[in-house]
């Protein structure tokens, strides 16, 4: 195809023709006949689409499906029990704001400080270790100092927690994530869980996002697996249910303080807006407000690692060259009739899938785990540490 059409109109026509051809409503020739001026470009795209749709796909063997179901069922009681009610004592109690006048004064003052401060703006995207990161944190400290006047410390902590999470993701992507950055994130989550954000939807969004980030993107730094687990526990789905956050009990992560992380046991039925005694707005920042943004928790000698000290960063799914793998015929080299309505059945000598391609080992068991997977595995201990169902099969299915 040389110099093909690249307009949205052509994309629409191609999509419509593909739907018609794959759905058996039209043939390729009929589609080309309907758009003779575009036929030269439509034809190869339609043909390759049709060919791809007829590419044979393997199916997961029934025994593997059953084994995985057995394993999932073993985890279901724990995983699906998160909707039980919790006592109201766990409800986050949001602070009330001060007067509109005080809030307005504070906002004007903060804006005055911030306006024209090029350093602050320039530091917005800096990460720990970057030149202006200190400026970024200092500005947070200043804004937090005025939070009691505006009556919005919860919203500020929500913003800060999101910022710490952004930083953790970026650092992890760059393989620069440190224990300090994780501890800072934990601290922000702690404060968010204490103050609440005033916006239940935003809180849920943060915790959902954080949990998914830790499950899918953020990797545990070597040597900080226990702290990584603390943060993962802090944002686990069990902590936020139906818009309610079970507060963390300490700003210090358990792995750094030697105390166990309290596991949420029940959910309060509703979000309440009753101020707690500890959240009384104050015209001046407290020492703890400032300290939480500047202090960098460091590991103490009392730290109790939750992960075995022997954890190593072994690549997951390390290929193991076994006879089974090398002798297993590839199921990709076969064709099957197009599983679409209206298409004529294939009568040619289509190659059948050899019975031997079904995996012969126990499926679903990860052979090795790296540090991150090892940490995450604590939330999936059944899946990763036990072999549910029948014992590993011997490679008898290899042809």
């Amino acid at each position: 195809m040389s110099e093909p059409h690249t307009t949205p109109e052509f994309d629409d026509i191609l999509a419509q023709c593909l739907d018609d051809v794959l759905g058996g409503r039209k043939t390729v020739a009929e589609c080309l006949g309907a758009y003779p001026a575009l036929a030269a470009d439509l034809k190869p795209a339609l043909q390759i689409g049709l060919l791809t749709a007829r590419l044979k796909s393997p199916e997961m063997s029934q025994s593997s499906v059953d084994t995985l179901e057995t394993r999932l069922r073993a985890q279901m009681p724990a995983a699906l029990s998160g909707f039980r009610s919790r006592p109201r004592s766990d409800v986050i109690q949001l602070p009330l704001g001060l007067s509109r006048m005080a809030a307005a004064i504070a906002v004007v003052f903060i804006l005055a400080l911030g306006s024209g401060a090029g350093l602050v703006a320039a530091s917005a995207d800096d990460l720990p270790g970057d030149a202006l990161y200190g400026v970024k944190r200092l500005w947070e400290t200043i804004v937090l100092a005025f939070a009691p006047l505006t009556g919005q410390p919860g919203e500020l902590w929500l913003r800060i927690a999101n910022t710490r999470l952004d930083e953790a993701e970026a650092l992890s992507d760059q393989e620069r994530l440190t224990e300090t950055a994780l501890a800072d994130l934990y601290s922000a989550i702690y404060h968010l869980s204490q103050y609440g954000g005033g916006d239940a939807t935003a809180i849920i969004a943060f915790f959902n996002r954080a949990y998914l980030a830790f499950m899918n993107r953020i990797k545990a730094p070597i040597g900080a697996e226990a702290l990584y687990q603390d943060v993962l526990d802090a944002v686990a789905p069990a902590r936020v249910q139906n818009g309610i956050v079970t507060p963390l009990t300490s700003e210090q992560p358990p792995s750094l303080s030697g105390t166990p992380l309290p596991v949420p046991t029940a959910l309060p039925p509703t979000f309440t807006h009753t101020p707690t005694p500890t959240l009384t707005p104050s015209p001046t920042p407290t020492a703890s407000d400032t300290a939480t943004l500047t202090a960098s928790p460091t590991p103490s000698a009392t730290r109790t690692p939750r992960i075995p000290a022997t954890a190593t960063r072994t690549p997951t799914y390390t290929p193991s060259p076994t006879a089974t793998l090398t002798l297993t015929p590839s199921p990709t080299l076969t064709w099957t009739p197009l599983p679409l309505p209206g298409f004529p059945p294939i009568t040619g000598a289509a190659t059948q899938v050899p019975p031997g391609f079904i995996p012969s080992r126990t499926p679903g068991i990860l052979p090795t785990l790296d540090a991150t997977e090892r940490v995450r595995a604590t939330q999936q201990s059944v899946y990763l540490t036990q072999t549910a169902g029948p014992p590993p099969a011997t490679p008898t299915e290899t042809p």
Partner: protein
Amino acid sequence: MERADEGRVLARAQRGDADAFAVLYRANVQAIYRYIYHRVNDVHLAEDLTGDVFTRALKGMTNYRDQGKPFVAWLYRIAHARVVDYYRMTGRRPAESDVEAEPIPVSTDMDEGMLRRQAAKALREAIAKLTDEQQQVIVLRFIEGQRIETVADVMGKNANAIKALQHRALRALAGRLERAGFDVESILSGLS
């Protein structure tokens, strides 16, 4: 499973009904397995990652919000994240070989079955050489048979973007097979 039925089963699963989750699992496990398989080209790895996807889905059920979209779309998103995570952690590249660098010799007297197998191999390898987004569109649209709207939902894009991606991906595939010496039309005629 009809969408209305799926919604009811989802609600039951979220209330802690293990059987309901098992129904969702059985209804979608093969689709997820196929999707992953076509992204990693390894049956064993595909099984492992499929298990991982459903384990994560189970863990995330309590936070799942049914917005009337197919449940499988959420599973595809988890599966995509796992595939990306796998390649990121292992440092492996999806493609095992380069179709254009090592063109498959196609002779006129080649047995039709062999030609089809070679073409299938070339097509699979050509898919593996596409960009990540193009691979997603090709697998979801043509192997999984998903609608444009579902693919758009899975990938977080609008329908027009998916149509454009689809067009570019098909052009790339056609070009790669042509350069590898395959006549798609004759292969198709041999299949029909």
